[in-house]
């Protein structure tokens, strides 16, 4: 890629990431939420990877980091589900106080769930992307 693309990608990707985080945190108030926010964060990394080349990106952010991000997200989600069982006796019970509507801190555990889902989706999609882009063809095929 040319220098212009590289520089612009490097400038823009933090902004994209901030937008993704905003979307995750405000998921219960405005359009958005964990899924699109997570995918937006992943796409910021994808932009970096595509602009600065496979090798550079691979040195900066390994698949294992993305995989850890994903596992943490999944664990947040599962732990919230299990905490519902512990505090209220039902799986996935929204056990936190609901708060005042239309504020950032409202909706019980929904913002926390959004964070979990966001991490999970972001990490997961970026991990898939990395495995696909790092795949190299072998020299000769085994077919005919």
């Amino acid at each position: 890629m040319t220098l212009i693309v590289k520089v612009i990608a490097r400038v823009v990707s933090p902004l994209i990431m901030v937008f993704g985080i905003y979307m995750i945190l405000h998921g219960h108030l405005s359009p958005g939420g964990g899924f699109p926010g997570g995918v937006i964060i992943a796409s910021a990394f994808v932009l970096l990877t595509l602009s600065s080349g496979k090798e550079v990106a691979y040195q900066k952010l390994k698949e294992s980091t993305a995989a850890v991000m994903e596992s943490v997200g999944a664990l947040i989600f599962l732990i919230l589900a299990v905490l519902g069982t512990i505090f209220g006796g039902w799986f996935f019970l929204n056990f936190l106080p609901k708060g005042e509507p239309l504020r950032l801190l409202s909706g019980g555990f929904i913002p926390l769930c959004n964070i979990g889902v966001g991490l999970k989706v972001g990490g997961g999609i970026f991990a898939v992307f990395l495995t696909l882009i790092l795949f190299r063809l072998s020299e000769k095929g085994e077919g005919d």
Partner: protein
Amino acid sequence: MLFFLCFALFLIGLYCVLIKKNLLKIVMGIIIMEYSVNLFLIMVGYKAGAVAPIVTAGVEKANFVDPLPQALVITAIVIGIATLALMVALCMRVYDRYKTFDITKIRRLRG
């Protein structure tokens, strides 16, 4: 009639899956089918003259479209991209082994 157009999109995808000989074209056919189903679900939930199902300050009891299909479609979209990723991984791996995307040349299994 709108519903039927949506179904026509579905049939185009099905046709692509059944006819085409290229692995990637088959994948695209499946993607088209998924699009049509997502469109159908949202159409089912649309209510004429209603607004998006987000409560804003001041407007307490507004006329909302059906929020349930929207929640389903978000899930369906993410399932779609997960399937796509695995399918593309399989395609690349098949290409790695056979050096072709042509299913008429990839015929090791009989029957």
